[in-house]
């Protein structure tokens, strides 16, 4: 299939890109890796009148250390570059663990981190990881900049806090608190397909080995990344043994409302959510314990 006709701009600078977005507003769409936008246009699910291609904005790509243990990733950084970065493996192991699950290498070679977050596909991995890690989104428009916490960024199916004249420019991953472990789990019908259910977990232990804080975020079970609040509550202050993990995972599977489709029923997704949550939390705890 072919997209509807559109105008195409290749700005040479961020300012030029922002000016184009300001001018065209709702008619325009930024083009990053094109791995979601182009198929959507070919199926005519998206029909932007104007495309603003970000691929020449070298300043928007890059992976940098941010202070003690933090990380900054430019929005146009290819997913594959993140996957292969030693800095990411060191400072954001959850990202490193997650990236191989996103589509296939060919797609990750083009697809960008910013594109995935801005797209907010409910089945996408990166929004869940961003939420689990309390990432902050740096957002620019022609006459200003703001920083949006991940918890305020993802608003619903394919919807974020971005305004049509705004660009996501950078994602900041703060350092993990001490004694924190992370883990990622997903199940798909085929390798590389969008997950039936997946989750990202982060657990922080207190000096005494009990859980001081935890975060469990699902994807493919709702309108976007879905934080399991009750699950975290059940864990807080607990000694993280198998029973506590099981109880927390069980609570998590009860607080989500997953969809049914041809690949899996809601009940099956709920079952998977509970299994994957238990596995992810257990691994996160093991890793946190190893740091004590």
């Amino acid at each position: 299939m072919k997209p509807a006709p559109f105008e195409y701009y290749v700005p040479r600078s961020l300012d030029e890109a922002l000016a184009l977005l300001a001018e065209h507003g709702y008619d325009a769409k930024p083009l990053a890796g094109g791995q979601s936008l182009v198929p959507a246009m070919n199926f005519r699910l998206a029909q932007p009148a104007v495309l603003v291609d970000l691929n020449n904005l070298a300043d928007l790509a890059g992976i940098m250390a941010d202070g003690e243990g933090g990380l900054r990733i430019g929005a146009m950084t290819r997913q594959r570059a993140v996957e292969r970065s030693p800095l990411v493996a060191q400072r954001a192991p959850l990202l490193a663990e997650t990236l191989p699950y996103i589509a296939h290498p060919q797609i990750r070679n083009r697809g960008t981190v910013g594109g995935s977050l801005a797209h907010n596909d409910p089945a996408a991995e990166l929004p869940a990881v961003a939420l689990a890690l309390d990432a902050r989104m740096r957002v620019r428009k022609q006459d200003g900049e703001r920083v949006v916490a991940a918890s305020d960024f993802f608003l619903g199916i394919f919807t974020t806090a971005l305004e049509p004249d705004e660009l996501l420019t950078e994602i900041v991953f703060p350092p993990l608190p001490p004694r924190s472990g992370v883990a990622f789990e997903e199940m798909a019908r085929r390798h590389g397909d969008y997950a039936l259910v997946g989750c990202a977990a982060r657990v922080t232990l207190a000096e005494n080995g009990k859980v001081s804080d935890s975060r469990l975020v699902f994807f493919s079970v709702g309108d976007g990344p879905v934080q399991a609040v009750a699950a975290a509550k059940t864990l807080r202050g607990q000694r993280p043994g198998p029973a506590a993990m099981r109880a927390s995972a069980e609570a998590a599977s009860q607080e989500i409302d997953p969809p049914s489709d041809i690949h899996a029923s809601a009940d099956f997704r709920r079952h998977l959510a509970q299994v994957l949550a238990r596995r992810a939390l257990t691994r996160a705890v093991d890793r946190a314990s190893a740091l004590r």
Partner: protein
Amino acid sequence: MRAIGSSLPRGDAVGKVVGATPYSGDLSMPGMLHAVTLFARRPHARILALDLGEAGRVPGVVCILTAADVPHNRFGLNVPDQPVLCGPGDDEHASRVRFVGDKVAVVVAETVEAAERARALIRVEYEALPVVPNPVAARQTGAPVLHAAHPDNVLLHYRVRKGDTLAGFAQADVVVEGEYSVGGQEHAFLQPEAGLAWLDEEGRVAVACAGQWAHEEQEQIAHALRLPDERVRVIHPAIGGAFGGREDISVQIVLALAAQKTGRPVKMVWTREESIIGHHKRHPMTYRCRTGATRDGRLVAAEVELVSDCGAYASTSTKVLGNATIMAVGPYDIPHVSIDAYTVYTNNVPSGAFRGFGAPQSHFAAESQMNKLAAALGMDPVELRLKNALRDGSLQVTQAPMPAGVSMDHVIEQCAESIGWRRTAQGWQRPAAAQPDSPWLRRGIGFAAAFKNIGFSFGYREHCWATVEIHGGGDIDRVVVRCAGSDVGQGAHLAFQQIAAEALGIEAEKVEIVSADTATTPGSSGSASASRMTFMAGNAIRGAAEKALAMWRDEEDRPVIATYEFNPPATTPMDDMGRSTPNFTYGYVAEAVEAEIDTETGEVRVRRVVCADDVGRAVNPQQVTGQIEGAVVQAQGWATIENFVQRDGLVLTPHLSTYLIPTVRDIPDRVDSIIVEVPDPLGPFGARGMAEMPFIPFAPALTAALHDATGVWFDHLPLTPVRVLETLDEQA
């Protein structure tokens, strides 16, 4: 170097890899028109009226074909029960649509866009009819009758009675009962249906398309257009896979009709969705089985009832049923057998030919029975198989002796040894799978075997033509082989080339193959199916080559040209007790699978497959390995993630995003292809057909591995994660 037995590279490889080779969808001609099909997209309805008024006025539309335009509005490979186009008219049969892919009209226009616009404006008035969703509903009294000739919706019932099962079961110390079901499967060949038709320089209607049997397509087109066969020409350009999915007519007849009507070239390309709803699938089947054995593991009796979902039209259902019947108890010698097999019309997408042709379904049931029987007897499954395997002269269920060259025990032994089975003083012993360090992952190793006919069965007149021309003076400079047989992607033409070279004692490079065109080849080669192409064409080419070589030696004239028709030994249809000589030869295969199961998510991963396939003589070993690996992966898809879902006649998986096939990352971690070479006494240089065989034992070997891993039997395919978990829960 001898031509046979070497892995010569494919002449067509580079062109296909770089995209230079034209497939039928790539063809075009000056002045060409474009056609699109209006599919019914409802499973059962009567067409009351058809209004083409508005559609016909769309600029660019040249004509719209409907049922009224088809001279003889019925076609079918074995039973002509399918309307070319459905619509109101004198023929009540054609006034009904019986599945979503029935065709109502074909719009021919200057551009695809104009044709599509017009198609959207065709008004069809349907009267919805009650839908027959499955064979159980179809056989209930009062069910809607789908074909007047079959008031009970049963297209065919085969009945086999060998020996006396009552007496047989009385001798049994152990009896195992089982119920099995298997799903349909979409061929998912790379290239959806496409074709181009025109009137050629001799005034024939020429159709270039992807098919499996050019002469049969020629006959069916001629039949529908009421033309003599020689007024129709069929050409197969490069073919993007077939697997049986191109045995039935798709675009050929309507394209021929459109070219005839407009006098201009007409092209049609189906979308993937049209392809999935438009062509037949593998037969979903259900089985009820009883198998009895003595304490020492001798099979004494077996009873099977099987029902196949024929779908809306016969396609090759009767032939598939025949195969399923004679393989319903597996490759074993059993004295007392009773089989009842039914194929039943429904409003589903027709079922038809697909690699294995009834054998995978029946072997799933039969081999699962054997694995359960081994467990019940406390006997190793390889040991039990070897005790009962068919041998030369064993009586088949049809009471005819097995043709010479049976190698069942060879393939079983070689396969078992390769994956680590040990021969001990107590007999064969299964290796234990190394268990991973995880509470929820379990591994197991399973085994299954199979046999499958080569060539057409049950009295169908099986034959193949070839012509060999030898050019040169004293030495042979160049050889032209004319043989219609289709290269559907499997590399048949390279095999033809190697066989001709071997027969003439020359290098393969000197041989040119002229093929896949009814106008330039001497006669039918039969279908590229039934694992028969290399066997049949190989024999025909060898016969023609030897005849030509004798002329070359005896005569002065150059070039010499010899034509040969190969006829294998005759077969016979089954009588009312199932007695027949069903086939002239078979292929033999055994497979072992090591699999891992996640007992919490229901995921199944195949770690290793060992396939020992007796190919008689490997004409080109690399191509043989390619067929084994391809068949294993296709079988893994069928057994695990491929799930063709139909509900009330509607296809719920009409895209490759909903109908999932394995990707390179889902296939087994390792496939070991063991090429066994026990010469087939009838085969060209000993070669047997082999392309279907490695598909057949995979599914029961996999479920045996899962049983080894978990102690649970999985009797229903596909093994979706939900089904796996439910089965684990039920049997826990």
